[in-house]
């Protein structure tokens, strides 16, 4: 019997990666779709529907092998890369950028979460939607309430939609 401590102890197969990705990226996002402005919408690490001509899906390149190669999905290496930001703003010219169930916004401390939200605001002069599951945010949950944390990390011009079950949708700009 082998004892496993973490994902570092074995290699994931393509099938396992598919299961892992699908478990963490549901396509139940009516609460975002109904709020999208007209125009192109960029979905980053968010299982964006690449069959929709108005959605441009960017996925982390670590998932590259699990997607249909015929789908018009673009891949990125670093979320914080100026190259990625420039490519999106210059060539896609989106009216909105969406983060939905993204690994980029999981297991973050409040400070890291605040930094990433500010990075999004500074990088994309568009409507921004960020879905946050507070159960996946890393802080002292005996000491601080979720309300306190979510209010402490948002920037100006943000509407916080409470989706219940500790999930929030930030609508920025």
């Amino acid at each position, binding site marked *: *019997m*082998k*004892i*496993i*401590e*973490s*994902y*570092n102890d*074995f290699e*994931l*197969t393509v099938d*396992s990666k598919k*299961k*892992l990705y699908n*478990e963490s990226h549901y396509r139940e996002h009516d609460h975002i779709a109904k709020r999208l402005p007209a125009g192109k919408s960029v979905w980053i690490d968010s299982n964006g529907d690449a069959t929709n001509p108005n959605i441009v899906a960017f996925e982390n390149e670590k998932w590259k092998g699990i997607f249909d190669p015929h789908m018009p999905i673009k891949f990125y290496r670093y979320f914080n890369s100026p190259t990625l930001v420039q490519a999106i703003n210059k060539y896609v010219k989106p009216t909105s950028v969406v983060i939905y169930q993204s*690994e980029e916004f*999981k*297991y973050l401390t409040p400070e890291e979460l605040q930094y990433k939200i500010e990075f999004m605001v500074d990088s994309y002069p568009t409507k921004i939607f960020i879905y946050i599951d507070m*159960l*996946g*945010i*890393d*802080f*002292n*949950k*005996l*000491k*601080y*309430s*979720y*309300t*306190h944390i979510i*209010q402490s990390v*948002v*920037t*100006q*011009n*943000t*509407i*916080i*939609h*409470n*989706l*219940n*079950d*500790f999930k929030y949708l930030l609508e920025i700009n």
Partner: protein
Amino acid sequence: MYRLTGEMMAKPKFPKSLEEENQNSCRIRSNAFATAWHSTQKSFVPEEIEFAQDQRILDFFDDQPIYGIGTIQYFRGKLNIITEDDPQSYKQALAIINVPTSDLELYHGLECVKNIDKVCVAVNKYILWTPSNKDSVTEDYDIALLEYIKTIFPNRHIEHFYVKDVKGNHFNFASPTTQFFITNENN
């Protein structure tokens, strides 16, 4: 300025379909999704494996009946788990908290096992919540959890396991990596 919509911090409504039946009166809920996720993640490895945190639980208990509460389904068949009858008649108890649970729910949920000789409490520290800030709680979350468990199990020997800065890499949502192994001082 930010604006807030919807009701803030309503008591969590966990979908009924994801709740598993608990046969006892202890108020720690179970989570079928976590049980399924446990199996799914184990299936990623082609050979027979055990998660390190599960192996610690298996090593801790003996063959005597174990009063089980919470998300304990994985250990049925591996341990002599019982979920019915009066908990006070048992010498061993296993409590696995892997459903959104408030600090007070945790406290009251563990009341029924606090006098049992050998207890393992495993907590997914991501799914706890408190309705308001508590100034008196220690800043370090891992230590704060230990202190909280000590208030429920005073004057007991507690062995504390946790992964510092646990993120998504250690199967914590399948089987909590924060564990307290509680015995009497002279055990």
